[in-house]
């Protein structure tokens, strides 16, 4: 398990390393003065001079790349054009809002999806199963930001059940503000996860070891909930890990629609004010988040499934 984890995180680091390189080359591929491009038109001359010195633009490109890596390793993602504060600090200040939103979204949708899928698999081809399947397909199709806008229109503006904007103060108010955005982000996941769980559950229930469990008189409840579901949710873990990218993207939109603080709002605001260091920093941090979450999903899978541990 230890070696597996080490290898998996090694791969994650390698991917992150290549990602940073791609990012660097992308900035360089745009014609013009790199300092101008990286800082945007709003930067002060002092800041430009400072970055020019830091980037060592007179040095060969390999040397520049090394300096770039060096800054990354020290957690230095640059400086905010306006306030002069470190980008890392600013991004990490906003990150918790986004993470909470993602966590809330995936928690409600995965629990409901797993329950629906397991129920549908235990009662295949019944009316409820078919209804769940039809609803699942329709929900999968709905892009999060459209759902966000429509639910804002219906539940916040017209029915006024939930607040329209902001993140709220205090625990209950925050929770109340979380409902609509988490609903919008999670909706398509419910159907997706339900379908996934139903399919893998049906497959597992047909496997020999389930017949063995039945032959020993274990209760159907125990067989479904412990013997089969534990195997059937393995793909869900992977899908959520890989889906971190989608979740982040949805969160960006939900934060804009509901005017919530967070990574998405930070990036969009920074693009409008042409505060490029913050944009780049946020993109790198979210890439890191994604890489870590896929690695984590693999580790959780390995922990849940002893076969995966042995196979790799």
């Amino acid at each position, binding site marked *: 398990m230890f070696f597996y984890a080490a290898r998996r995180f090694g791969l994650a680091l390698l991917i992150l390393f290549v990602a940073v390189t791609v990012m660097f080359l992308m900035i360089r591929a745009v014609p013009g003065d790199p300092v101008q491009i990286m800082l945007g038109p709003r930067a002060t001359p002092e800041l430009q001079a400072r970055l020019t010195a830091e980037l060592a633009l007179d040095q060969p490109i390999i040397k520049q790349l090394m300096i770039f890596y060096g800054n990354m390793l020290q957690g230095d993602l640059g400086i905010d054009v306006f306030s002069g504060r470190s980008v890392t600090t600013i991004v990490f200040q906003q990150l918790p809002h986004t993470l909470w939103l993602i966590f809330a979204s995936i928690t409600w949708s995965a629990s409901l999806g797993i329950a629906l899928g397991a129920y549908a698999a235990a009662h295949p081809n019944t009316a409820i199963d078919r209804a769940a399947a039809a609803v699942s397909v329709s929900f999968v199709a709905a892009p999060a930001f459209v759902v966000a806008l429509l639910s804002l229109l219906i539940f916040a503006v017209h029915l006024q059940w939930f607040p329209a904007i902001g993140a709220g103060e205090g625990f209950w108010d925050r929770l109340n503000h979380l409902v609509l955005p988490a609903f919008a982000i999670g909706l398509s996941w419910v159907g997706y996860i339900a379908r996934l769980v139903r399919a893998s559950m049906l497959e597992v229930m047909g*496997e*020999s*070891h389930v*017949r*063995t*469990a*039945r*032959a*020993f*008189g*274990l*209760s159907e409840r*125990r067989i479904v909930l*412990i*013997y089969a579901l*534990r*195997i059937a949710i393995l793909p869900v873990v992977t899908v959520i890990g890989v889906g971190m990218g989608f979740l982040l993207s949805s969160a960006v939109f939900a934060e804009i629609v509901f005017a919530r603080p967070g990574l998405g709002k930070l990036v969009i605001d920074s693009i409008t004010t042409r505060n490029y260091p913050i944009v780049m920093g946020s993109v790198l941090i979210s890439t890191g988040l994604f890489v870590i979450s896929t690695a984590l999903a693999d580790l959780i899978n390995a922990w*849940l*499934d*002893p*076969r995966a541990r*042995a196979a790799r």
Partner: protein
Amino acid sequence: MSDTLLELDCLSVDYETSRGDLKALRDISFDVKKGEIVGIVGESGCGKSTLISSILRLTAPNTRFREGEIRFKGRNLLAASEKQMRDLRGADMSIVFQDPMQTHNPVLTIGRQMLDIQHRSRSPKAEKLARAARMLGALGIPDPEARLKQYPHEFSGGMRQRIAIAMALMSEPDLLIADEPTTALDATLEVQIIERLQELQREMNCAVLFISHHLGVIAELCDRVVVMYAGAVVESGEVREIFHNPKHPYTRRLIDCDPGHIKTRARVLPTIPGEVPDLAALPQGCVFRDRCTQAMPHCAAQVPPLSKLEEAHHAACWLNHGEVPA
């Protein structure tokens, strides 16, 4: 007959399919006495699997019990509720399945699974685990306490089948059903496991219904044999009688085709030509007729009854009837 444990009485089972009923079992009658080992022989597709899943009622949803009874300790199982069946499974009767590689849950430790199957016992967890370890030890698994913490994939096929047998015997059942338990294993392992099974069976005095197509194992292990073909019993009797004095052409061909019985070095292994008939559209008369070298006109007219030839020997073939009714 108070020493009869399991009794099948004219059992007929169909599978409902889109192309009509599949007559998987027809008119099956035989019994298993307490502490006895009965072998069931036949090619694949002869209904052995349907037979054991019917006894345990682990049948597919499209299974229909058309006729007959399955009596266990005098009680008709076909009339029992699902709850009553569950109480029997893994307690009074248990089963060892064919493929040891698929039979255990891959994500739970062996110890956890052996603990879970003792769900009826009220003993403390430590005691249950100790019992599991004792059982594994009895099946010849070294260092059983440590191995309880391992997952199925960490065991070889032979080891997994030993575990499966240990699990099946842990409740000291009255009846153990073994569905080709050694088919997936190589010959030396097969002998070892069969010997262990025999020892434990004697110790516990449980009856065994042993399904196999390996005649050598059947001859070695069993007291009596039931030969099945295309969903029906064609011959049954004491093991010695069946092997030395087979009365049904199918049994004779089966013995001839068994690699263990071929003494001269043949270039080609003998086989029985032809195929098992389609169970959805059975021909009239004897089901073995098309593949039988001794078929007579009368075989096409009427199904031969399973008739008593000697005290412990039944066969279903018109050849044993001296004068064939016209």
